[in-house]
């Protein structure tokens, strides 16, 4: 409470310092981006939720249908549950394989090996590539007839259709996505590790902790802000995953994802905008759950500071 009154007093003091010109500058330069964000991001997001309760096809009148779209989605739309499963699998794969691997590489490089700059650049390189290019490279490597992997395996009678076989193509896509994700995670953790106070590690070593104990009990907990960010990036990237499967086969035949279903329903010939928006709303709610958790953690950290 005393803190609050102090802050209010401070605010009053600063409020007096603003001239009319200051207020105009603040109004215009804050107003434009806020307005832009409302028009481009928040307005459309809310409008999507609204549309999800209608049967709009993009041309005719908008009819209110209540929760029908959601009911259809859960009960009758064959692609929905596979897409949910694929998105969950994607989260699991990035979270349990790619992210820990990125952390592992960051720890190795942070220990001060030679050529660390070289390793860092090479591992980060895939992050700057466009997903269209990544999708193409997947085809070059994993093509059925002349792809590199099949040439090496040299099984001419029964070549594996890495991208077409619906039981393995999702795994190949997740590997390709991890190719980019690992480098991103590595760089974030590398920066975090550099800021850990070496005195902490020394103290732990003097107390007789071995390297593994030091890492899990001392280093990792101090990386909490990075952990939060990496966690959210992992989940959001998994929920956003789109370009890479779309570049390979438009997200069909085992590569269904929620983002692909939205695009298909909205842009596709059927133009079931109300229905597509219902899927979008599901994705929005799940994403917002993670985003809010992240921001609460993040802002709590900022306030402590």
């Amino acid at each position, binding site marked *: 409470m005393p803190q609050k009154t102090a802050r209010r007093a401070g605010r009053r003091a600063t409020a007096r310092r603003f001239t009319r010109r200051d207020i105009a500058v603040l109004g215009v330069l804050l107003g434009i981006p806020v307005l832009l964000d409302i028009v481009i991001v928040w307005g459309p997001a809310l409008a999507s939720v609204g549309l999800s309760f209608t049967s709009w096809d993009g041309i005719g009148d908008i009819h209110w249908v209540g929760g029908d779209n959601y009911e259809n989605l859960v009960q009758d739309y064959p692609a929905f549950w596979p897409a949910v499963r694929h998105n969950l699998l994607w989260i699991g794969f990035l979270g349990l394989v790619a992210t820990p691997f990125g952390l592992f590489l960051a720890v190795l490089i942070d220990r001060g*090996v030679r050529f660390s700059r070289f390793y860092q650049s090479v591992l980060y390189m895939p992050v700057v590539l466009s997903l269209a290019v990544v999708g193409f490279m997947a085809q070059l490597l994993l093509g059925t007839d002349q792809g590199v992997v099949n040439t090496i395996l040299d099984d001419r009678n029964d070549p594996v259709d890495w991208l077409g076989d619906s039981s393995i193509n999702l795994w190949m896509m997740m590997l390709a996505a991890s190719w980019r994700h690992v480098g991103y995670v590595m760089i974030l953790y590398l920066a975090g590790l550099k800021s850990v106070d070496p005195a902490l590690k020394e103290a732990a070593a003097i107390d007789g902790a071995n390297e593994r104990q030091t890492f899990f009990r001392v280093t990792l907990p101090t990386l909490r802000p990075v952990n939060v960010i990496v966690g959210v990036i992992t989940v959001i990237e998994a929920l956003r995953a789109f370009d890479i499967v779309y570049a390979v086969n438009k997200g069909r035949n085992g590569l269904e994802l929620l983002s692909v279903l939205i695009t298909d329903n909205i842009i596709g010939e059927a133009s079931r905008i109300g229905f597509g928006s219902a899927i979008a709303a599901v994705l929005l709610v799940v994403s917002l759950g993670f985003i809010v958790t992240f921001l609460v953690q993040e802002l709590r950290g900022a306030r402590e500071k």
Partner: protein
Amino acid sequence: MTADIRATARSVEPAPPARASGPGRPPRRGRFGVHIFLSAVSLLFLAPLLLAVYASLRPYEETAQHGYFSFPKKLSFDYYREAYTESGMGKYFMNTLIIAVPAVIITLFLAAFVAFAVARVNIRGSLFLLMFFTAGNLLPPQVLVTPLYVLFLKIDLPWWMSDSMTLYDSYWAVIIVNIGFQVGFCVFVLSNFMRTLPKEILEAAIVDGAGVWTQFWRITLPLCRPAIAALATLEFTWIYNDFLWALIFISNPDKLPITSSLNNLRGQFFTDYNLLAAGSILVALPTILVFLLLQRHFIAGLTLGSSKG
């Protein structure tokens, strides 16, 4: 924060062995194993790129017969010339620049001011503003597609601004959406960066009677140059690589950005993958060059918001 990342990065680079196992660090065992492991992983990470380069240098007949993993008989750069002329890449590259350059500049300007207001001016609801922008950047873009599409079709533009007469199918649409979507990330990173700047300079300026604009433009912004350079390279890569927005908001094939020019290299019945490889490398080249040239900034840009000491 940045300073310390960079200082460490610099000192690690030449890495004399004495420093690595310096005071307080026990001598390492298995360092050789670490090198072998990291080299193997690096090779694995580079392999797709190297194979694409290799494929692009070889004629289709040869790889069709022997597969991509075979010894070369003939190597040439012919496919690069062909890919460049056949896809009309020069034009699409210009389209991308028309979209990316203004988008990056305006995004950074607006985001810098919001970040300044949130981090350095005592205004009401600064936490809310920060959340409002950051959360917006993290939403999945597909959620926004329909309402924006409808909205853009309804907004008319004069002929001199857009030959389609609407905001739809114009560069403006893609530029505006990119700005609106990317401002959030930049606000987040820049506000974190600005919090680490010493407050005294700003306080001195306020005592001297500097207004909000002077505090922002003359005092704070020059100190943010490293962060802004980092974000500029980052944002340029992201907007350069984007193809979702252009796919949705642009219908005239002459206005598409460079990421979609690769489709011109796919034949209706037959696709020469070696040609496509050359095309992909040409498309990826600017981002790889930007990354290699501005590497240190680039990496610092990603880490700015995350490491808070």
